[in-house]
């Protein structure tokens, strides 16, 4: 059984033409696509918000419209009622879910902890930053303890540091016996979260990447150092023909990234100071750019039988 499944989902007069998705239980699935490719629409349809089209979506084998309480949905467009406190908001959500007092308290404590907003409980929403509100939205969606959590652009509008903290929060939620589906246009380094990635283009999932393929997506790393001694320079360039090194920077592209540990050893050996190491490209964004030629992408990463991929490459998913 899949956490979410739909076959040939089409929504007239929208970009969604024939989406087939089979998302394994307890996995983290990334829907990656360019702007206006229909990611948000697809996510809201999976959440059961598109009355007619959502009838074609199944959550754990049941029609999504019948199990909306098992679905959490978060989008950055949601604006919270400014006058309420964090505690009031979560308490109301628990009330709507029909929880009794004990369950309400338990879930309340749990979501505050999971979303790292315990210290915000007594603040009103107007006192919270955009980042805090985003985590509160996550907590609110988590109150139901959903089996499926759908998140649209979780890092949109956040600073680089906030993006990293948000990824940590999502990583934490990922290990809570539920399936995560995250839609992104590839402008944040979310790839480490995903077990599977589906590329949305031309109104369908044109290709899918499993965990192994995600790990080997082409990356470029920049290492900024103090001045390299000529011996160190020669040594580093000798490790891999594709490594480019100047007096103060080293660029690793493609498979050369695998040599990072070796290069660091060389730098330590010659007591070269490392200022910072940072990615030069964003693999997800590169995928989105490639999605403008979906047939090429489909050849590189064709959609395939996901169940076998999960069993082959990510056995830990079923254990979780």
């Amino acid at each position, binding site marked *: 059984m899949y956490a979410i499944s739909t076959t040939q989902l089409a929504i007239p007069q929208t970009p969604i033409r024939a989406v087939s998705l089979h998302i394994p239980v307890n996995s983290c699935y990334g829907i990656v696509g360019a702007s206006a490719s229909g990611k948000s629409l697809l996510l809201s349809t999976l*959440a059961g918000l598109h009355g007619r089209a959502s009838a074609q979506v199944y959550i754990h084998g049941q029609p999504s419209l019948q199990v909306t309480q098992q679905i959490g949905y978060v989008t950055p*467009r949601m604006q919270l009622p400014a006058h309420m406190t964090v505690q009031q908001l979560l308490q109301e959500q628990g009330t709507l879910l029909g929880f009794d007092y004990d369950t309400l308290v338990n879930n309340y*404590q749990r979501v505050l902890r999971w979303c790292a907003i315990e210290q915000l409980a007594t603040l009103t929403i107007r006192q919270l930053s955009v980042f805090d509100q985003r985590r509160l939205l996550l907590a609110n969606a988590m109150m139901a303890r959903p089996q499926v959590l759908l998140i649209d652009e979780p890092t949109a509008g956040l600073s680089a540091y906030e993006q990293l903290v948000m990824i940590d929060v999502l990583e934490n939620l990922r290990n809570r016996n539920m399936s995560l589906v995250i839609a992104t246009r590839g402008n944040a380094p979310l790839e480490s979260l995903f077990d599977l990635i589906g590329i949305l283009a031309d109104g369908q999932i044109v290709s899918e990447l499993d965990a192994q393929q995600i790990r080997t997506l082409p990356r470029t790393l920049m290492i900024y150092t103090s001045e390299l001694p000529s011996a160190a320079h020669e040594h580093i360039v000798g490790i891999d023909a594709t490594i480019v090194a100047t007096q103060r920077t080293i660029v690793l592209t493609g498979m050369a990234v695998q040599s990072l540990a070796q290069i660091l050893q060389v730098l330590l050996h010659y007591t070269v100071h490392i200022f910072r190491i940072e990615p030069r490209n964003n693999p997800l964004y590169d995928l989105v750019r490639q999605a403008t030629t979906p047939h090429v992408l489909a050849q590189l990463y064709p959609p395939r039988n996901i169940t076998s991929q999960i069993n082959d490459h990510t056995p830990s998913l079923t254990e979780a």
Partner: protein
Amino acid sequence: MLPHTDDALLSPRTAPFTVFWRYVWMILVEHMQSQRIVIAWGSAVAVAVVILRDSTTSATIMGTWALYAIFIALYNTSVLADTAEQPFHIQRLLAVQSRRMFLWAYMSAALLVSLSCQLILMLVSLLVAPIARPDLGVLLASIPSIVLMLATATTCMILLTPLVSSAVQRISVLLLIALPIAWGSIAPRIMPAGTLHISAVLNTFFGVMLWPSLHLYARAITPDWSPTTIIVYGIHIGLCCFFTLIATRWFMRKHISNS
């Protein structure tokens, strides 16, 4: 503050009926906190103080009450439907047990707010126009008509809101309501000279269509308990059910926008 505990055992959920009324209460509290209700209550006080002050006949007062009932129901329903459409409420839509419950909670809340406005109007007008105060028997007998008018206007208005209907559906409903009402005035202008008999037939048809509502309006001003009135009440209860059914069907199929 909620107490801190780490016991994570899930216990049975409360009955849906309880959750429904808790949600209605939550909507009403938020409506008050957002101060939108001030406009509705303010309008009741304003109508009583400005229009009905020093009225001398009970017919004037009760006529204004009846007319106000229609307009306040339209206003409150549109405001609450607009609130329900705010993106954050999507999380609540998913939290309640069904879409049906979500819609009905907002409709019930709209009806309750309209009832409160009507009550304020009646109480204040009894204070500011003591001479025109209707007999208690007449007053009580007009209440069912007013409540039915509020309910019919609420269920009809919900069909005209973007929460429930698409643009085409809204225009269709609007035409279905506006055309019969306006036909008498527009027909002579738009119908060619040779087709006046068709216009007359339509006039009669629309007249029959509107008769129950006009009768209900008249009974709100001059109440009585004749068999015709009982039939008219029955027709309007049926209409409310029909409108609710249509609204629910449309809402179930609707794509709830989040942008």
